[in-house]
């Protein structure tokens, strides 16, 4: 299978993730859509690694997975803190930083 197919698939997944981030209101689902976008990036990195025949792209993808884990941990921590403060779980209502 040509590398271009993988790249096109990765572009589609990235765009679905963008549409989700823009249209959903629940911050949990927004985080899930960010995961989608990071995974699309991972797929493109691995496809390019296969295209070049070097494994460096796979190391990049591994680091991206680490970053994604960090982002999930901090994001979920913020959401749990919101819930504890009885704030609405809705990104439209949460527009200020003051806690």
């Amino acid at each position, binding site marked *: 299978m040509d590398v271009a197919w993988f790249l096109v698939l990765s572009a589609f997944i*990235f765009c679905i993730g963008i*549409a989700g981030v823009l249209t959903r209101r629940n911050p949990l*689902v927004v985080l*899930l859509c960010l995961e989608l976008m990071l995974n699309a990036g991972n797929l493109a990195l691995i496809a390019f690694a296969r295209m070049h025949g070097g494994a460096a792209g796979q190391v990049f993808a591994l680091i991206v997975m*680490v970053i994604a884990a960090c982002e999930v941990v901090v994001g979920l921590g913020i*959401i749990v803190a919101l819930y504890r403060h009885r704030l609405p779980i809705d990104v439209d209502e949460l527009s200020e930083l003051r806690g």
Partner: protein
Amino acid sequence: MFFVAAVLALAGALGVVRLRNPFYSVLALVAHLVALATLFLLLRAQFLAAAQVVVYAGAVMVLYVFVVAYIGGQEEPMRGEGGLIGSFGPLFAAALGIELCIAILGTGLDAVDSRGPDVGAGFGSPAQVGALLLQKFLVPFEAASYLLLVAAVGAVVLARRRRGLEESEARSPVGEAG
């Protein structure tokens, strides 16, 4: 094989975006991640496929399920269809998708239209990735480990129960109902 995995991955991604209940969104993302792991295998990235299933679809998604169960998976209405962002968002995503496809299919890189060079059996094995990680990419590796540490500490600080500073200093019992 590619098309089966690709259709599954796209369906999972659409499910994440379209399903109302966050719990079902998480489950759709698990299906998406497993399909992506299959694609990684097709690209000869064995170690990353295994890491994707074990770490991502396993550990990270369990974290999501816990948080969804904790705050309650209430069904939310979509952003109003008449709203500016509600109509502009999908349009923007579609425009970006078309643009990316034009960029990929019209690229001057010849190798994009090939299967890639022949690689040995050890390509993408844990040995090769580990050797690269500990020799050529040692500094990013260390930076990533520190980032993980900072993120873990930050999450504990963020999600801590706090009712004023003096109480958190006095260590209120953790098992308190809340």
